[in-house]
């Protein structure tokens, strides 16, 4: 929004992220990072409560079962799926070029490997949780 005859007319950047759908999606990726933070805080509180004894930990477990907490967790889960998707989408751009047998590894292969690792880790975590309960 400035006018300098030597440089030219600078247009303002105000609300730049609404100018293109691509930017809106980028902001969504950045916003959903907050869900990861919130979930990390929830877990960290759990660890602190665990160190304070059984009653404190049971109180934390009880709080997790409240309707408000369940709603929060649904929102967090959805946000984290969106976040994971957006990161796997740009993962090939953040890595060095990989050559296998003289051929460049396709972006799609890298993205699918990311998702496959996610599925494997999720299954392992669920299996461990079920095994711990039994």
């Amino acid at each position, binding site marked *: *929004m400035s*006018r*300098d*005859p030597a*440089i*030219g*007319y*600078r*247009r303002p*950047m105000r609300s*730049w*992220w609404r*100018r*293109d759908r*691509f*930017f809106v999606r*980028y902001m969504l990726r*950045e916003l959903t990072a907050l869900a990861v933070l919130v979930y990390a805080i929830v877990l960290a509180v759990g660890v602190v409560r665990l160190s304070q004894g059984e009653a404190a930990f049971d109180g934390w477990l009880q709080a997790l079962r409240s309707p408000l907490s369940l709603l929060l967790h649904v929102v967090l889960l959805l946000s984290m799926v969106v976040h994971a998707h957006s990161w796997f989408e*740009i993962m*090939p*751009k*953040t*890595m*060095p*070029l990989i*050559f296998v047998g*003289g051929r*460049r590894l396709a972006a799609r292969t890298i993205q699918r490997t990311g998702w496959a690792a996610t599925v494997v880790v999720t299954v392992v975590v669920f299996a461990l949780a079920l095994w711990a309960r039994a």
Partner: protein
Amino acid sequence: MTEPRTVDLEVLRYRPERDSEPVWQRYTVPYNHDMSVLQALQHVKDELDGTLSYRWSCRMAICGSCGMMIGGKPKLACETFVRDLLPGPIRIEALAHFPIERDLVVNAEGFIRKLERIKPYLIPKEPRTLAQGEYLQTPLELERIEQFSSCINCMLCYAACPQFGLNPEFTGPAAIALLHRYNDDSRDGGRAQRMEVLNAEEGVWSCTAVAYCSEVCPKHVDPANAVNQNKVNSAKDYFLRFLSPKGATR
């Protein structure tokens, strides 16, 4: 033959001697199926308003001159067709994030300075005489850098980069992609000199991986990949200096 159909263009004009800020101006031009946006602008300049300023040269997406915002997206006017933007009006504006010099012409001075700064030429590892022959490279070594050497300096990636819009000092996608093209060249020995540009805050660390630059690139250079690969290189360069007194790149 049917009557020639027409489409409206809305062009952001800026004439520093009379406009205090840019203003939209509407032109109605006839079009046919194979007409590019550049040809539509040429019709305006030839037939309707000779004062309209824009850059162009080759008309075939290789000179990189006619980059502009068409319908809000950074595009080359020569390879964007009117038929894909119907019914219009087609909004045409100078490349985003650059200062407007006049109408659709932006000030590219900053970009040229960045290009100079990255030393975009081979700095041979071992100088060879003509008699010793050329610097050889395997096909795989070529493939590592080939896509990054396809840049035509059209600056569409800068118009797609909000971080450049917010901080014009950011070295930005095209310049870093070209820097990477030389740094990763098996014949080059200039890496240490170029790492200073990458390591600076205006180097790779101003990038937040929006990655729209790669999306709009007409030559599939994938500058976002070049920038983000070099975040790793820059981090290595920083930490390895603790292991090697001379630093990682020397």
